[in-house]
């Protein structure tokens, strides 16, 4: 690699804009314009080598222009994704192809055909994010290494051309140079600058660590993106749904049969006038009494399996804990979290009937039918007995007009009973459904009179385990740290040099020039030294137009 030796004796890598040590511009054309202080004029790989394919790819991704373009494209794509709802937010039981057209007409159809219904999961959106990731890595490496080198090797004594091409620059002629420099040194230290002195020249510097902020936050972002990618690795991420009825004990899906959950009770509360804080009355009036949800809660007992899993055998369970799962208060155990997400109220559980003598109205016994596990025969004693010939949990007439069941969930239970009594030894048949009774073989003496319906609530819970969360957390924390480091501090430098019997003062900051100028005012107040002028402003006023320059 060729290297460039500066007149001060420092050897710079090829591509350096101005000497790392003394700051003398290496490719000087006698210009008087302000120096571009970004990256300290260091030799960036992307700016120096452009021959091979690798060089070109590197140069491409290290460009901020490309990075910003990627950000803007991602931004526009994200906007498009919010025009119509994404597929995950449309009703679950519809065909998306039809749904988008029905709801939004031709625009919806086009949206669906272009695949925008799943935009954020599309290959090209993920590719965009990946390209941003690549750009982050290359951009950062391209800059941080040479920047670190340049800041580490900067000398105290600077070349006059470096100083006079700074944005803040002033020259003072004074008699007692030593005294002035000593005073400035003392004041700078008081303003919490780190001051280095060499041959009577000063370099005061503070907040250099803020220069690393952008790179730290980029590292955080990369860790975050890696965490998000790991989610698709099997085993890192579990997302299951379980429905559990009151009183029921069920295996928790995704736990390999290790954990079981019993629901003791599901509670659904709404805000009611008179019960709740009366300042809510106006809001309750507007929406309707009992219409605003107050609480969704499932009281559960968590069990862990003890002993080995034996197929077919009833698991042996050990109680771990009781917990009320509420929205915002998931049950956490062993990296799993169980969330309250859904519910069904009043699902029928048992239905009771009384065997009744139609004429006298006398009841001869009660039959309670478990709608999930009905018995074949219910013996009522004294010669009374009821047989359940057929059971339709979700009753309907099928296409041929025969009774059938839609599902195994007892939404609309119907029964065919055969009632035996001492005076009806051959039995009477009766078809009983909600709100209707049929006696297919003529008038019966007895009937099954509906007594009561016992219902229970069902809780819909989500089971999650996500081993990527801590990675995302670490990434997010590093990102935030880097952001604050880079944004809330700035890197300020003040050079004080003796040049040909004059005292030259130049200053640079990567941002917040207003703050630096205030600091300089305080530094020079009462010293009789000339306040460095803001040459960018001077140039603007002189109508030359400002140079883009100066910050990183």
């Amino acid at each position, binding site marked *: 690699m060729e290297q460039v030796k500066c007149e001060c004796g420092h050897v710079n890598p090829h591509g350096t804009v101005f000497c790392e040590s003394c700051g003398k511009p290496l490719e000087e054309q006698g210009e008087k314009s302000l120096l571009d202080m*970004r990256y300290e004029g260091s030799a960036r790989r992307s700016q120096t080598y452009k021959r091979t394919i690798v060089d070109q790819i590197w140069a491409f991704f290290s460009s901020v222009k490309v990075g910003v373009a990627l950000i803007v494209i991602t931004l526009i794509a994200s906007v498009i994704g919010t025009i119509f709802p994404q597929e*995950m*937010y449309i009703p679950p039981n519809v065909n998306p192809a039809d749904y988008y057209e029905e709801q939004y007409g031709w625009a919806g159809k086009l949206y669906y055909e272009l695949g925008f219904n799943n935009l954020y999961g599309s290959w090209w959106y993920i590719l965009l994010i990946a390209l941003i990731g690549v750009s982050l890595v290359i951009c950062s490496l391209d800059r941080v290494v040479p920047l670190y080198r340049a800041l580490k090797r900067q000398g105290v004594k600077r070349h006059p051309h470096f100083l006079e091409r700074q944005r803040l620059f002033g020259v003072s002629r004074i008699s007692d140079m030593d005294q002035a420099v000593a005073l400035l040194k003392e004041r700078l230290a008081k303003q919490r600058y780190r001051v280095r002195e060499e041959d009577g020249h000063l370099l005061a510097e503070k907040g250099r660590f803020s220069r690393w902020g952008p790179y730290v936050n980029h590292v955080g972002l990369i860790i975050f993106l890696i965490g998000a990618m790991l989610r698709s690795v099997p085993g890192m991420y579990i997302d299951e749904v379980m429905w559990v009825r009151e009183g029921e004990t069920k295996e928790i899906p995704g736990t390999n049969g290790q954990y079981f959950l019993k629901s003791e009770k599901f509670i659904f509360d709404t805000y009611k006038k008179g019960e709740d*804080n009366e300042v809510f009355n106006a809001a309750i009036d507007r929406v309707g009494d009992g219409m605003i949800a107050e609480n969704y809660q499932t009281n559960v007992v968590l069990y862990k399996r003890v002993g080995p899993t034996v197929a077919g055998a009833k698991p042996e369970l050990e109680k771990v804990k009781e917990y009320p799962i509420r*929205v915002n208060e998931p049950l956490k155990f062993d990296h799993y979290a169980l969330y309250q997400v859904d519910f069904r109220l009043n699902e029928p559980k048992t239905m009771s009937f009384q065997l009744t003598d139609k004429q006298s109205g006398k009841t001869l016994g009660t039959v309670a039918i478990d709608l999930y596990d009905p018995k074949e025969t219910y013996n009522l004693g004294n010669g009374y007995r009821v047989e359940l010939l057929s059971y339709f949990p979700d009753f309907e007439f099928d296409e041929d007009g025969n009774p059938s069941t839609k599902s195994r969930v007892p939404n609309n239970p119907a029964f065919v009973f055969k009632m035996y009594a001492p005076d009806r030894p051959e039995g009477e048949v009766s078809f009983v459904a909600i709100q209707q009774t049929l006696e297919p073989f003529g008038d019966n003496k007895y009937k099954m009179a509906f007594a009561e319906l016992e219902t229970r609530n069902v809780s819909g819970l989500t089971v*999650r385990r996500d081993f990527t*969360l801590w990675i995302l957390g670490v990434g997010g924390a590093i990102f935030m740290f880097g952001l604050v480091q880079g944004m809330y501090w700035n890197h300020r430098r003040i050079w004080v040099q003796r040049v040909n019997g004059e005292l030259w003062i130049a200053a640079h900051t990567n941002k*917040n020039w*207003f703050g630096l100028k205030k600091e300089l005012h305080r530094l020079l107040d009462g010293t009789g030294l000339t306040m460095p002028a803001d040459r960018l402003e001077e140039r603007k006023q002189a109508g030359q137009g400002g140079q883009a320059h100066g910050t990183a």
Partner: protein
Amino acid sequence: MVQLSSTLLYISFVLYLIGTFLFGGAIRDKRKEQQGKDRWSQFGIAVTIIGFLAQVGYFVTRWIAAGHAPVSNLFEFTTFFGMMLVGAFIIVYFIYRLSVLGLFALPIALLIIAYASMFPREISPLIPALQSDWLHIHVTTAAAGEAILAISFVAGLIYLIRVVDQSKPSKRTFWLEVVMFGLVTTLGFVIVSTAFGLSGYEAKFTWIDKNNQSSEVEYHMPALVGPHKGELAKESAGRLDPLVEMPAIINAKKLNTVIWSLMAGAVLYIALRLVLRKRIAAALQPLAKNVNLDLADEIGYRAVAIGFPVFTLGALIFAMIWAQIAWTRFWGWDPKEVWALITWLFYAAFLHLRLSKGWHGEKSAWLAVIGFAIIMFNLVAVNLVIAGLHSYAGT
């Protein structure tokens, strides 16, 4: 307590209004004498601070009355956003001592608070998803971040008003007028809502929704556009029959409000143009005449530099933590989430352009204006138009 709370909000509103005029006085005064103490500004900032304290009083008393931080619906959130904007202005004022910033920041805060007041103002109880300390943490931080970013809009606006050449029409004057028209239309919305609200206008329609169900809707403004197959209910006989009927997927009531606001905005804008006999931005230009452009640019940049981390923390990081707790996943591509990401991406691009491509001055000011438009879109349109999990706002 609730009464006290509303009174305090009202007081703060009036004080911000007075503050605006005092800062206006400061501008006029400065032209005459550059030296000496700037009394107008001192009074202006004092009144602003008292107004801010009154609004903090509103916030605290309402919190006590409700038992939860008043940031749970559109009125409360937007009011809080206005308060944070004033708070951010006060801080920036003490750093840079720029009176003209108050002259522009306060009216925008006033507009925001007035806009907020057009939505249901009663204290509503928290639905289960909102019952969490993260409500206070996430919403307040996000609002604070957006408010600080909004200061960059104010600084950018001042920059543009000063720098855009008003002697001949151009693209720049056009877009600057678009910004002005947007502000005037917000005022138009406030005026028509208040006017019809005071007159107690009500018209009930029965209509057929997109699932072919018959439903009812109550308009509070005369229906220029009516709902799908809408018919005036009996008790509303004599109310205006809609001029145009909308298909079922469009929320005709909201569209009607938008049309009324645009009409009121247009009337106001035209009236202003006729009275001023020049563009609004041109009429405002003298107010910004003495502004140091570099300082305005610096304030705009500083606001983004400070606001961006706060916004990231509140609107993305805290939001993700809460979403993981309440909604089982830290990110779900809900429209509000996506728009927070869009806002974040935009300001990330802003910072990169500024840092590396040297987009200072006017370009940077335009970007600040666009950024604020995105924030407002997320606040207004995403809540009201693109419904999602976040739409607690109501009608």
